[in-house]
């Protein structure tokens, strides 16, 4: 079966985020960018399905400026077969991303679509579920295990207070949580090979989607800082402070 994986280019996980002095956003100039960590897990899961002989083709799609072809190449180096880049500069919000991905799903007709549960920049946690609603597919969100069984897929989900397992009809949408797998690193030969794999570029207009931002960010601020308190000498002093100074026990 064919698996479609959506990946997003975001600020690298290890970069310290700084708010711009004019409060218009986060400073991304000369900052290291990378594939969103939850998307890496999505790619890895697709590659594992291929290694098990369940998937026979992995198509990776990314929406964003030209630079996000780097993340598509990374996915190709990890084992995806072909890439689709939907070139869009500026802010593409979740609903528009879902509409673009829906158009790709209609063209490609994958049996399974895997996305990260959220991107670590906007932290929205929306696109997979919106895509599922727009395509009329079932959804297995926050997956910690994915088992394809004939025309169904069983997805174990990380939910408040434990785990929940669902059975979904295929085609279906899965969004990944942290413990689904541990992504591999791309080997140098595979990075070289990835450069030769096919990568199509298209525009939102090619897919018949108009980007229409519904949300306006009025300002972005640094969080109110917490200042360091005092060091206590021992446990007895700590308990005394908690009881008599902070009065929280």
């Amino acid at each position: 079966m064919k698996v479609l994986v959506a990946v997003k280019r975001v600020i690298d996980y290890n970069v310290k985020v700084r708010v711009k002095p004019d409060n218009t956003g986060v400073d991304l100039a000369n900052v290291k960018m990378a594939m969103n960590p939850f998307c890496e897990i999505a790619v890895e899961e697709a590659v594992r399905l291929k290694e098990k002989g369940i998937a026979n083709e992995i198509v990776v799609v990314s929406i964003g400026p030209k630079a996000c072809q780097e993340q598509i190449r990374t996915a190709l180096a990890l084992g995806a077969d072909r890439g689709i880049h939907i070139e869009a500069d500026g802010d593409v919000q979740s609903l528009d991303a879902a509409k673009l991905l829906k158009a790709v799903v209609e063209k490609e007709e994958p049996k399974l679509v895997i996305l990260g549960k959220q991107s670590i920049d906007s932290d929205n946690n929306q696109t997979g579920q919106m895509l599922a609603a727009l395509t009329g597919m079932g959804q297995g969100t926050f997956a910690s295990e994915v088992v394809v069984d004939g025309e169904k897929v069983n997805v174990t989900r990380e939910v408040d207070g434990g785990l929940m397992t669902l059975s979904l009809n295929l085609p279906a949408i899965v969004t990944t949580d942290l413990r689904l797998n541990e992504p591999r690193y791309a080997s140098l030969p595979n990075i070289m090979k990835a450069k030769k794999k096919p990568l199509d570029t298209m525009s939102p207009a090619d897919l018949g989607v108009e980007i229409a931002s519904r949300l306006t960010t009025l300002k972005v601020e640094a969080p109110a800082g917490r200042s360091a308190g005092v060091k206590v000498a021992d446990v007895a002093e700590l308990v005394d402070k908690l009881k008599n100074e902070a009065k929280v026990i």
Partner: protein
Amino acid sequence: MSILVIAEHDNSSLKQATLSVVAAAKAIGGDIDVLVAGENCGAVAEAAAKAEGVAKVLVADNAAYGHFLGENLGELVAEVGKGYSHILSSAGTTGKDFMPRVAALLDVAQVSDIIRVESEDTFVRPIYAGNAIATVKTSDSIKVVTVRPTGFDPVAAEGGSASVEQVDVVKDAGLSSFVGEQKAESDRPDLASAGIVISGGRGMQNGDNFKMLEQVADVLGAGIGASRAAVDAGFVPNDMQVGQTGKIVAPQLYIAVGISGAIQHLAGMSDSKVIVAINKDEEAPIFQVADYGLVADLFEAVPQLEEELKKVL
């Protein structure tokens, strides 16, 4: 304005998070109705009717909603909610699952995980794991919003007297079915609503050592959490994780034991009223946010803490 709040519950009791969502609805202003969708969930509807500020409780009681499947809830809420100006739910795993479906079905944006209401169309939410705080305005006629419960003090659970009406909308999309669940069995308070939380990190060294924290938690009546490092190392299950990728907590007292204080962890607990850090590395970043820091070997300090607490409590 009219606001529809989707209740979070387990078919038998109303989750406290719902009371915080009602508080967010009050901050927006307007009539507040609560939708209770579930199976044999009459007791939940009764509890919701008593919550402060609720005008009407709508009950959709059907097997299709018993396991809160996102496909079925999404269609139900989009149908019931289309006459409202706002649809609100908690940003727990259930709300995160079905609300974007509702937004897509109504062709509107969703504002996720708000911590403050500025006006009827403008909300404040953390982005970049809480390293930045965005103020966002939505231009859609129906505003679909998920609420971070720790951002709003819950309304009173008693004192209201809302009417209760049945809703005969049955939406069974037939796309998914429930197979099973594993619930973490525990007598301890739920992490998200506990007044005191004690969490362990990689410094705990293994899962067995969390028993030390359990003993302290028993004395304090505290919930037990963990850092992502402790979860990744396999010490404890993921539902104990506090942080950007786990649970967001804001208790009166948060005790971090053997936790270095990675940004991702701070994002989940830095709104706590009082933070205590116990760590043997005095350079650990956790001390920069702690009200009380104790530089000590946790394997000595934690048993001492249990003894000292027993003396005063």
